[in-house]
């Protein structure tokens, strides 16, 4: 088999609504609600929404939380907000730990 080298999807390339739905497993209504709550920030108008590539990772996580914990859209929004805040704080903690002398 010919050796093939796969390339990463460009991070700057915005993704459309259909791709977001297909790749994440969220349904249209979930996305509408998550946009209304402000967790997802699309560009363009409702008929031409595009999303930043990072939204796909959020959307996949939201779908996992929905499937595994039975969360509805407000629940997904809250969990995503907390998880992201935790990640920011974990980053800040790593930063502060890096300032301490090694034991």
């Amino acid at each position: 088999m010919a050796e093939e080298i796969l390339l990463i999807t460009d991070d700057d390339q915005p993704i459309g609504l259909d791709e977001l739905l297909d790749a994440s497993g969220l349904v249209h209504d979930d996305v509408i609600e998550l946009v209304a709550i402000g967790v997802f920030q699309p560009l363009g108008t409702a008929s031409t929404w595009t999303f930043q590539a990072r939204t796909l990772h959020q959307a996949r996580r939201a779908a996992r939380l929905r499937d595994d914990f039975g969360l509805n859209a407000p629940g997904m929004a809250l969990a995503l907000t907390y998880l992201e805040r935790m990640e920011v704080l974990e980053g800040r903690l790593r930063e502060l730990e890096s300032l301490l002398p090694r034991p």
Partner: protein
Amino acid sequence: MKFKDYYSTLGVEREASNDEIKKAFRKLARQYHPDVAKDQESDHKFKEINEAYQTLSDQEKREAYDQLGRHSPGEDFRPSPEWDSRFWQDGASQGASAPTGDPTIDLADLFEQMGFRSAHQGRSGEAAFSRRGQDYEVATTISLEDAARGSEVALDLDVPEIGLDGTMHRVSKTVRLRVPKGVIDGERLRVAGRGAAGIGKGPAGDLYLAIRLQPHRLFKAVGHDLYLEVPITPSEAVLGGDIEVPSLDGRLTLNVKPGTRGGQTLRLAGKGLPKRKQGSGNLYCVLQIATPPSLSDRERELYQELAKLSTFQPRLHLQDGQQGDQSNG
């Protein structure tokens, strides 16, 4: 095929109701879910819990599982011919037996294929059954140097694939992936359309690669910034001077100002990890004052002489009645 006890994985009785099964799953998920727990052990445990739940939460699969009978976990078994004809070969099936003799197929694959077949058969009146291919999720650990330069990783995938005719097989394949420079720890990269092939008109799934950075001997990475602990001598801290420090692009000279305190941080702009498009993070040198583990007689004499001579009082603010009179800065 090796038997797995899905009931004991979820910690429920064989007679448990659907509701009890769901509750047991949620309770375990709260503890081991990948969005909750980050360690590999939990990850592995959650896969087992999820596999058990996927089968036991589906009436048809649960019945088929129950009819496999009781075996000890890990025991090698083959479903009976009755099981095969009842759960596998009915409907519009091709009459093939369940692929239980195939050592690469495990119980999870079997039930997944069953789900696929019933969906397939349920819609046999429609023109064609389509389903999006599964996503592949893999993790790789790369060095800091490779994250900075960009690298190629070879991923060994061992994945079940279901053909258009409903037969399942596991395929091992190696894919090579170019990891661009500028990735950071915890980042997830996507290769669209390179997961499992779709079924019918369904599109292919995607491939996701989670990046982990190997801990480096010297540098600690936080996002694109690097932290380096730099020990300096007491004299360097007092008198200042130029010192050499390592960086990802070779050695750099750092100017330590006279009167440097321990824990003080010097920023070398743009000497951290490069970013994907342009620019780089910073390198932070955290200065720590190291004391010599042993002294020569002469050194000790000089320190003693200095101690006698010095008027420096760093603890003045800790004395009674002196609070706030002197800053410690």
